[in-house]
């Protein structure tokens, strides 16, 4: 428990309280972004670099944009009723006290003899160089040892994308009565901020390049398909904010994104089925080519690509659906 860890934990607690108690919802979503960033720093201090990258990209990037887009379509202020209900406060206090009492039975932070470090984790740490031979153990477990769970997660992300499209629709109903120059002024994004547009457009290709590095270098450095998908979607969201959401919807149409999301999940299960038909189990990459280690390498590369494709396409689809909707 270093001083830095203590500082980030205190900041996390303070920003969470401020996010919940602010009346202005824009202020709440900014505090939520700060909360996510501090949580990402905390994850890095606790030796979890993959999780830190993903939380920073998703929580402080994508989530803040989605909240602000939804707030532009709903309301800015929260109406707080004066009625004070006892039952939720009692439930919360009981839960807090019970958890606090139970927490004294927990092993302390960093204890090497804790049960969570005993059974499966040493097996993973010792067998990964022999069976899979890639440096990043988290990617090895995610993609190969626990590949079936990751397939389920990809399907869940795809289902959420379908859910958002079913609720919001492909072509938003146009209730707008603005015509001509005022309509052009409204949908043009931050067109009149020339400085923002120039510097922002310089950053978009760099962000996309970094997303590709994180995707394909995920075997050697912290990264992988989930973080890369969020980073690529963040680059497209930056373009949509700078140039106007209609331009980003025209560049990456909703139907194409839906097909790409389905393609990503299909690639994942397709690799599993190819392994199945070649004589091994479902998602056993060792039978893909003659050399088992090369088979594992190829299998992990393909399914991480599928994961990144699905996550990118779903997040872009959700952003286009929310940002292109006419306000009430």
């Amino acid at each position, binding site marked *: 428990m270093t001083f830095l860890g203590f500082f980030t934990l205190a900041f996390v607690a303070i920003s969470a309280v401020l996010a919940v108690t602010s009346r202005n919802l824009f202020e709440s979503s900014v505090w939520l972004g700060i909360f996510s960033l501090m949580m990402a720093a905390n994850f890095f201090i606790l030796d979890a670099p993959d999780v830190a990258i993903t939380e920073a990209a998703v*929580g402080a990037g994508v989530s803040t944009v989605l909240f602000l887009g939804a707030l532009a379509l709903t309301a800015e202020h*929260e109406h707080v009723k004066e009625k004070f209900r006892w039952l939720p406060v009692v439930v919360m206090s009981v839960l807090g006290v019970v958890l606090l009492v139970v927490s004294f039975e927990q092993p302390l*932070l960093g204890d090497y003899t804790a049960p*969570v470090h005993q059974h499966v984790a040493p097996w993973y740490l010792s067998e990964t160089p022999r069976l899979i031979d890639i*440096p990043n153990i988290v990617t090895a477990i995610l993609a190969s040892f626990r590949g079936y769970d990751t397939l389920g997660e990809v399907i869940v992300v795809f289902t*959420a994308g379908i859910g958002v499209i079913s609720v919001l629709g492909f072509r938003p109903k146009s209730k707008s009565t603005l015509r001509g120059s005022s309509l052009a002024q409204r949908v043009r994004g931050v067109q009149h901020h020339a400085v923002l547009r120039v510097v922002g457009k310089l950053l978009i290709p760099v962000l996309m390049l970094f997303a590709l590095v994180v995707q394909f270098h995920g075997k050697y450095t912290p990264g992988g398909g989930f973080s890369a998908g969020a980073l690529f979607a963040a680059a497209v969201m930056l373009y949509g904010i700078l140039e106007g959401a209609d331009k980003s919807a025209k560049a990456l149409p909703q139907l194409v994104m839906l097909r790409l999301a389905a393609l990503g999940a299909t690639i994942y299960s397709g690799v599993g089925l190819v392994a199945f038909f070649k004589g091994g189990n479902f998602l056993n990459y060792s039978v893909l080519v003659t050399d088992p280690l090369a088979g594992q390498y190829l299998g992990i590369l393909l399914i991480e690509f599928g994961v990144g494709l699905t996550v990118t396409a779903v997040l872009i689809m959700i952003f286009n659906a*929310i940002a292109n909707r006419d306000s009430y």
Partner: protein
Amino acid sequence: MTPTSNLVVTALGLLNYWVYIFLLCVGLYAVLVKGNYVKRMIGLGIFQSAVFLLYISMDKVDGGTGPIFQGEPVAGQIFSNPLPQVLILTAIVVGIAVTALGLALAIRIKEEYGSIEEADTQRMDREA
């Protein structure tokens, strides 16, 4: 001195879990008590992040580094536990997908009812 220093060591070791309990209660308070739907989604996001903090706190090992082999695997090198990180990595992206779905529903509720406060929507449902 020994009981006090023992208490301080215990408090420092358990501080992550106490912050997790505090964030859990803050998130749960927002979901249960607040009437605004967007504020409830914010509370749900805080709740999810608190659970991530619990799992990642469990995986830290004293003197360990991140679970990545630098060069050849050296016998006796201490790594932090990689397994909770795998679970949380996918949970983060699933969490943002669920948040996006909740926000889409809030947008539609605003368009149909004209308000995203629970009191207004329940009143309109009763009157209809």
